[in-house]
């Protein structure tokens, strides 16, 4: 017969034989707490991190084009270079957005998120390096057009250095920036700003601060143009 145990949520067993059990509990909880610390720390943004020249902290650390324009729609794009839906959006709306930039009909901010992992961080860092060389849009277009499958090992610092040559970047600074991951702190800041902004999927696009309609405007150029022109 069992000793009476009250189902009051108290300790199920008292007594001398619980040493092993308590030790196991202590070890499991302890190890988890120790592992939690670096996770919390690495998740913090760093306001002193180096940022590319075209970036402004007040625009959520985005890479901004036509920053000086007023009275035009402000398009903010949150995307991950590895996300297939972002590549689809880029294929649908990318050249229209580039036209808006070159004809000065919109202010556009790109926020390269990196939630899909290591290769997204490398890509985001390299995109900032390319931005400093005035090649962000070329980099952006080329990378999405040649998107490999997620974290397959295809995107390395070496890959981005070579890509720079392909884009006609001859500066040694770009290589140094890619290899040294100079903007990795900024990449984390972009991620943190995105999370504060409640960006919960990629791509997420705001026009004048309002998210475009998820049911239509991401999948059709016509609907997206309408969303921009109505703004």
């Amino acid at each position, binding site marked *: *017969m*069992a*000793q*009476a*145990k009250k*189902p009051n*949520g*108290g*300790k*199920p*067993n008292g*007594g001398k*034989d*619980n040493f*092993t*059990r308590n030790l*196991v*509990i202590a070890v*499991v*909880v302890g190890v*988890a*707490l120790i*592992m*939690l610390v670096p*996770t*919390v720390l*690495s*998740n913090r943004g760093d306001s002193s991190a180096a940022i590319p020249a075209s970036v402004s902290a007040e625009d959520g650390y985005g890479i901004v084009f036509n920053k000086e324009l007023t009275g035009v729609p402000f398009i903010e794009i949150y995307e991950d270079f590895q996300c297939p839906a972002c590549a689809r959006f880029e294929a649908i709306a990318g050249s229209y957005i580039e036209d808006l930039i070159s004809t000065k009909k919109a202010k556009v901010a790109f926020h390269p*998120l*990196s*939630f*899909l*992992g290591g290769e997204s961080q490398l890509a985001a860092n390299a995109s900032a390096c390319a931005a400093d060389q005035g090649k962000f849009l070329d980099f952006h277009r080329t990378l999405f057009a040649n998107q490999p499958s997620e974290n397959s090992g295809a995107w390395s610092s070496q890959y981005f250095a070579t890509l720079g040559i392909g884009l006609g970047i001859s500066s040694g600074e770009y290589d140094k920036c890619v290899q040294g991951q100079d903007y990795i702190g900024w990449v984390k800041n972009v*991620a943190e700003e995105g*999370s*504060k902004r*409640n*960006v*919960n*999927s990629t791509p997420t696009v705001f026009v004048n601060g309002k998210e475009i309609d*998820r*049911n239509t405007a991401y999948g059709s150029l016509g609907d997206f143009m309408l969303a921009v022109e109505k703004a």
Partner: protein
Amino acid sequence: MSKFEKLQPWIGLACRLTLGGVLFAAGYLKVGKAEISQMAVRSYELLPIPVANFLGLTLPFFEVVIGLLLIVGAATRVVAVLGGFTMFIFIIAIAQAWARGLNIDCGCFGGGGAVDPGQTRYLQEILRDAGLVAMALFLTRYPATKFSIDRAPRQSNAGETE
């Protein structure tokens, strides 16, 4: 000994391994992916953003701990209560997302965030979690199970009455 008394420690073991295994796997798949996990919690639109981000960061570790303790059978009753409570909260969160017409993935095993309308699986997610709550309740009522590191695992709970 009734048939149930003989079976109960084995049923308990199955509940422990299932609930523990699910919690451990759910946590383990999210532990190194804080940003995705935070995004999944935010997309329920239930908590203030900083709170959701904190939960997204810590919840995977909590799930791993509870899962491991259930698998080895340490402090079974307390841990089963915690695990069952967690699952109960998940059911509420998923149900409110469904009722409010949000289009999200539960993010239970990684992933999460917004999905296309029509891609949601709320009913399956709720039924699964309800099954896990039932297991947690069984373990809370009968915490003595086979192969547990709690003391005297062979004790029967037959002395208890409701």
